[in-house]
């Protein structure tokens, strides 16, 4: 067996300090980030008026509210709630469809492989980002000012705020499309529009359909809340019943929302699988 040559550990330590000992800065980084995060948390809790007494009082109140919620009971307003639920689903469906229809042409403008010019693409993208930065509820407030209270304002709010999201997602789908089909169309003498129609769209439509269905799901959730500011649907009923402390009706409405969301989830995932196939999802 060969013997290891004698090593002078001290000398090696002097020559490669980084191997023997991580520098203090890198060792201290983890704990100092944790301490800073914790300090900010405590500062936040203090600043936002948290106190054990308030917490305790609130939790007791919450427990009492939960007791009052059982059993869920709609009273005599069940037909009105069903109508409101229908309104909510309509808002989600129409808003998403409108957004998708508007987003399709715009997403072409924001895609790198359709519009190579950065000067046209950049402003389009930034304005889409701005639209996405504003919450659906804020859009609902704006549209209420324009078309008045009611579900129509909700449809427009969802349409506008999703328009931003869709355009971004669609343009990403278009940028991810295969160049070869497009080049094939060009090689056989197709125009730019032909390239988009026969080269790009067949590739991206299944992706887009999947995304639209997914958004219908998530918009069912958004549509339940825009009623809180007066834009129609079940949110309006929910906010009203919470304000007048009709807890049994509140819990019934929440249950209705849960059931509706689960049903839409199920339906749209079935359609999604039918369109894009199971393997594309997995």
């Amino acid at each position: 067996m060969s013997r290891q040559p004698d090593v002078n550990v001290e000398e090696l330590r002097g020559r490669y300090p980084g191997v023997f000992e991580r520098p203090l800065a890198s060792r201290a980084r983890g704990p100092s980030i944790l301490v800073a995060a914790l300090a900010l948390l405590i500062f936040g809790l203090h600043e936002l008026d948290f106190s054990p007494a308030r917490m305790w009082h609130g939790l007791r109140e919450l427990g009492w509210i939960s007791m009052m919620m059982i059993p869920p009971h709609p009273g005599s307003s069940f037909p009105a709630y069903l109508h409101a639920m229908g309104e909510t689903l309509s808002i989600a469906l129409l808003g998403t469809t409108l957004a998708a229809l508007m987003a399709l042409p715009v997403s072409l403008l924001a895609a790198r492989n359709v519009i190579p010019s950065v000067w046209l693409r950049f402003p389009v993208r930034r304005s889409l980002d701005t639209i996405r930065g504003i919450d659906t509820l804020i859009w609902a407030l704006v549209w209420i000012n324009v078309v008045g209270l009611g579900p129509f304002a909700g449809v427009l709010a969802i349409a506008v705020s999703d328009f931003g999201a869709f355009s971004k997602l669609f343009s990403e789908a278009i940028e991810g499309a295969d160049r070869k089909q497009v080049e094939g169309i060009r090689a056989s003498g197709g125009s730019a529009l032909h390239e988009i129609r026969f080269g790009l769209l067949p590739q991206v439509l299944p992706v887009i359909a999947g995304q639209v269905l997914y958004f219908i799901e998530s918009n069912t959730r958004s549509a339940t809340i825009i009623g809180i500011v007066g834009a129609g649907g079940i949110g309006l009923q929910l906010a009203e019943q919470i304000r007048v402390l009709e807890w049994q009706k509140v819990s019934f409405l929440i249950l209705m929302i849960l059931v509706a969301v689960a049903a839409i989830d199920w339906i749209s995932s079935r359609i999604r699988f039918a369109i894009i196939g199971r393997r594309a999802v997995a």
Partner: protein
Amino acid sequence: MPAAVSILPSRQLAALNEAYRAAVSRRRLRTLLAVMACVAVLFVAAIGAEVNLATFIAKIGNFVSYFDRIFTLDSGQRVWTDPGEWFWGWKKWLLLLGETLLISYVGTVVGALLAFCLNFLAAENTSPSRWVRFAVKRFMEFCRTVPDIVFALIFVIAFGLGPMAGVLAIAVHCVGALGKLYGEIVENIDMKPVEGIRSTGAGWIDCMRFAVLPQVVAGFASYTLLRFEINVRGASVMGFVGAGGIGQELVVAVRKFYYSDVSAILLMIIITVFVIDIATGWLRGRLFGREVRS
């Protein structure tokens, strides 16, 4: 150049053409039926949502002029000619924006901590018992399906008006959303280190700490940052129901037609959201960058 494509005899060609037309027309018919079904559903939905094109066309001018109005000062000038007047309340608004950020930070941290404790119970490969897993999963589903603003409405009544209700609402929603994502990361880990630790006689908590945690911590951090981004948006509207933050000022400005205030507050919210997006994107890049390097 010789023709590369051989032309089939005309009878064979006719049969093939016929089959092709039949196939295409069947597909077209199916597409047409699907489109018609969609249109019918949309039509019913349009009636349900009280869509009124006449109102829309009559009022669409309002939409454009609304943006015209929110960029006009009381004096009739454009807002950017006098930024001092436009952002007259910037001190108050900045404070409220700070409060909004704090709400989303505290809400995200509290929610993430709870989700962190719960997700090991909900993941298929680490859960100690099926019943615990079932219960925890249903609880998380409930937390993320009920929108955070509905929680805020209820918490405002239980805990009183103010940012505390907003924080708790965001935290509860966060438990549901993050718990699911965390659980999915945990389900995708390599189980060999866990077996290794268990073979040394360690208990469940030691397995989680020394075998699971090192594998998942980067993914957890990334999702938490993403959630923080989403929660900043969520917290900006918490004020609509009285749960603190800048939303309160915005809703008052919109309802009372303080036009230039609306644009000023909206602009501040948008810039904040942008900055947070970019900052968390940068942080995420650094986190993943470090993972790749080591």
